[in-house]
């Protein structure tokens, strides 16, 4: 059990976990608020499926950040753009909240990476 937690922590620390989580959350919220049954959405054209497309894209980018952290910078930017598009396309981006989560999450995924190490008591940076 303790080992499982340690492995999870290691997994979390080696990828943009929180940014991806926010992207997934934002996308899920947009889809939830649109709340079309899937069958209606696919038969109803752009207006009824936009929530699934925009929200789905955000979820996809979040999962990509988790499982393929190599593409973090790319999906981070795409996530921010999809969140912006959702504002116009899908119920004002899930009444604002989904767009907000997407922008914050996307920027976090984009900016994730090696941090400069600060030594204790000194301001010197070690690459």
């Amino acid at each position: 059990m303790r080992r499982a937690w340690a492995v999870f922590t290691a997994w979390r620390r080696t990828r943009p976990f929180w940014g991806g989580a926010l992207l997934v959350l934002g996308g899920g919220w947009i889809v939830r608020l649109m709340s079309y049954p899937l069958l209606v959405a696919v038969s109803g054209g752009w207006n009824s499926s936009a929530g699934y497309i925009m929200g789905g894209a955000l979820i996809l980018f979040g999962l990509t950040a988790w499982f393929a952290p190599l593409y973090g910078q790319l999906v981070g930017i795409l996530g921010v753009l999809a969140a912006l598009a959702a504002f116009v396309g899908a119920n004002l981006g899930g009444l604002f909240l989904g767009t907000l989560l997407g922008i914050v999450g996307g920027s976090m995924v984009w900016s994730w990476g090696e941090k400069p190490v600060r030594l204790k008591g000194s301001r010197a940076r070690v690459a």
Partner: protein
Amino acid sequence: MTGTSSRASRRLSPRERVSRRTTVLRDRLESRTDDMLARSRSGRRGTRVRALPMMGTGLAAVAAMFMLVSQSVLAVNFTTSDTAYRIYTDRVSGHYAASYINEQTTSSGKKAVVQFGFKAASLNGFCAITQQNLPALGTVSVIITAGEPVDGTTTAPAGQTIEANWLYLASDSLKGNGDQIAKMNLGQSADTLMTDTTAFPGTPGGFGLQAEVMNISKLDTASYGIGLDGQISLPNLKIRVLPGSRTYADCVSS
């Protein structure tokens, strides 16, 4: 030597082969996990400060789009299926309207609704209230207002009229004063309904209503769907999130 070993592996029973394969996979997983554990200990990774300018840019872009929407330059798409909205407006001026009785599929089964279709509608004031049950926060009302204040009187200040094309409403209750209705057909078979030149068909033989001009004031509906095949301009857009259930009275207080 390889010959003997391959002959030996051929002699393995299927169960043994599976168990050997599992061991290989488990070893690979373990070595990967160890790699990851080692990587997680070396160096510090995380969200870097450069997230802030990116976030700032994104938020500025949203703010800019919000401005464009509220100046009715940019039109938005607003659709939902099974969230019940209460919609209030001081006056709807609809051109080429039709309606019939329909069933709406929501995720909690089917509901009987009146399906309204407008080819073009201009609204004096728009106020939509929806309630969401959020975990931890309880009931939260989201109030979206646009155009002139919805207070029961039509003032129609310049540039504040909301224009919507191909507006569809699925309502299970609708109140209002129809104050100018022209060229109306009541009781027309629902499958022959037209909004101008576009068919808006319901169930054959069902009750249908069709009108070329339909102006309704003090509209109050409970709608399960606001559908738009066109787009809607929302001048002076405001979104407010307030705790608890909110009603018509909260449309004006800002």
